[in-house]
């Protein structure tokens, strides 16, 4: 089976600035893939090069098995949704959604039927005669989505489509977008800098930084098994601990923290290690357990407390002066500043980078 989209060694440079460097990516048909990264990481540039709005300096782009490097944008059969909707302000909703069909020689009655169906999919039936300015932001974005999917594109490209919406609407649209994608089965590439969106919506997440792919995998994979410090730091709330490898215990690794405490790392390692190596151990804040019992091997002192209602965020200092952030759900009173506590870290949830 051919992939929906195939990028081979894509490089894109503007003069001396390299926006995308040697990126290869295969996207299976029907996948919801997210390009995630900070602004300027090259994710939008990749999206625009798939769309044909920019041309890669080197490398090949294939859509549905066809090399499209020299195919102009209007012959690529893609659906594009922009951050600010880009609905044609002088055309009715009907003409907006029907726009792409007009250039595909779809007969008039069929256009009307398809537009009606698209409006049902985005759950806005009956707005055909309105102008875009008569709809709210969320509704406009649904129309933009309808306009992009009605042409049955080979791939749907979404450029931060939720970022112009306010928080509540964004969550609602996020769920709906995912449902529509599942329902239609259109291969979708979604660009965002919001890790929450990426984790919640995607089948696959591609984390990008400085024009390169840092890691790709399922949302669970990239969150639980980060390959690089950047990925660990960008997704969620990570602690990095300096440590030295003491011994290998089968799959697990025994390390000694800078303060002298021992820690068992069972979450794997990004590269091979041997005893004596200096390593960085990553552990997520919500996986650090703060307990009053002093039975656990690592002792710490609380140096900062943020009371968040359902949660508390602690900053604790270990014996060697290293600090750790811990996010715990509160079943009882929050610990207080200066208290000495035990810090429990499940071996499963720490990982060597």
């Amino acid at each position: 089976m051919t992939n929906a989209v195939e990028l081979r060694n894509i490089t894109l440079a503007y003069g001396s600035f390299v926006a995308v460097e040697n990126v290869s990516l295969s996207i299976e048909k029907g996948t919801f893939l997210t390009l995630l990264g900070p602004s300027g990481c090259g994710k939008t540039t990749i999206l625009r090069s798939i769309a044909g709005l920019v041309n890669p300096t080197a490398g090949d782009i294939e859509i549905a098995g066809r090399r499209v490097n020299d195919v102009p944008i209007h012959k690529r059969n893609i659906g594009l949704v922009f951050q600010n909707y880009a609905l044609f302000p002088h055309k009715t909703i009907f003409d907006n959604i029907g726009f792409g069909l007009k250039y595909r020689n779809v007969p008039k009655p069929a256009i009307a039927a398809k537009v009606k169906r698209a409006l049902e999919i985005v759950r806005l039936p009956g707005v055909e005669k309105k102008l875009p300015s008569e709809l709210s932001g969320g509704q406009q974005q649904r129309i933009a989505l309808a306009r992009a999917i009605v042409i049955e594109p080979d791939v749907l490209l979404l450029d931060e489509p939720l970022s112009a919406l306010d928080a509540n609407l964004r969550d609602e649209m996020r769920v709906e977008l995912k449902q529509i994608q599942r329902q239609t089965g259109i291969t979708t590439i979604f660009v965002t800098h919001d890790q929450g969106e990426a984790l919640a919506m995607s089948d696959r997440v591609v984390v990008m930084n400085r024009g390169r792919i840092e890691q790709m995998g399922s949302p669970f994979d990239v969150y639980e098994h980060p390959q690089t410090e950047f990925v660990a730091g960008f997704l969620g709330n990570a602690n990095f601990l300096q440590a030295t490898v003491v011994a290998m215990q089968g799959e697990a690794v025994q390390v000694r923290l800078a303060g002298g405490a021992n820690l068992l790392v069972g979450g794997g390692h990004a590269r091979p290690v041997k005893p004596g190596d200096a390593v960085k151990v990553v552990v997520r804040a919500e996986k650090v357990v703060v307990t009053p019992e002093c039975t656990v091997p690592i002792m710490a002192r609380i140096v900062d407390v943020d009371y968040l209602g359902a949660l508390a965020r602690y900053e604790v200092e270990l014996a060697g002066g290293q600090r750790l952030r811990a996010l715990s759900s509160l079943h009882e009173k929050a610990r207080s500043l200066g208290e000495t506590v035990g810090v429990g870290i499940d071996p499963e949830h720490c990982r060597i980078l």
Partner: protein
Amino acid sequence: MNESARGWGLIKLVTFLVYLFMFAPIIVVLILSFNASQFGGFPMTGFSLHWYGELMQNESVVRAFKTSLWIGIVTALVCTTIGTMAALALVRYEFPGKHWVNALIVGPVLVPETVLGVGLLLANRAAGMKANFGLLLLGHILLSLPYVVLVVQARLIGVKRVYEEAALSLGANRLQAFREITMPLIMPAVLAGLLLAFTISFDNVSASVFWRPPGVETMPTEILGMLKVSISPQINALGALMIVITVGLPLLGGALARLTIRRQTKA
């Protein structure tokens, strides 16, 4: 009366005087054009359309009017076409020397018209040509073009490229995207540019005197010629017509443009 009320009173008075100063001459011309008197001044001796009638009988005036109309229309059409294309190139495309072109294109606005008039005439001489109708037309195009470019450019910057990109992604080619999306969105500015170009051409006197071939009069040069002989009340009637055309057209254009924009962005 407290101090702030007195201050406001003063502001109102000054405002009134400024407007009076600006509009009194125009109003006087409009009123006097209906004066029945033999002389083109006050006092009014009665209401009459006599001078308008005389004007229609005056062959040289009618000829000059037709000349001006023709030049104005051709200037407007040529300037709008070239000006819109230039604005598109300057806003949407990158090419070497863009900054220079951008600066030079507004040049004719900055150079005094008289200088421009003499300059074009001398250039024409140097090329071995006498003043002719083509030169006159070319001069008017030169004068009006920058305004069209500036007006369309300003609107084009406001029409984000993303609309065109959306149209392209949906399968329209560049020409179709321009016709369906860009053109309707910049239409108000294009119309405004069209009317502006016509008005500038129709009004122009200082450059026209240099460029017109012998025997050809435009409306403003005709009026100038008439004034040399005598102040006939016909001139008041003629002035009133000129005012209606050159003030009315841009106002009409502005209203049309606002209407289109409101329809596009109806809340």
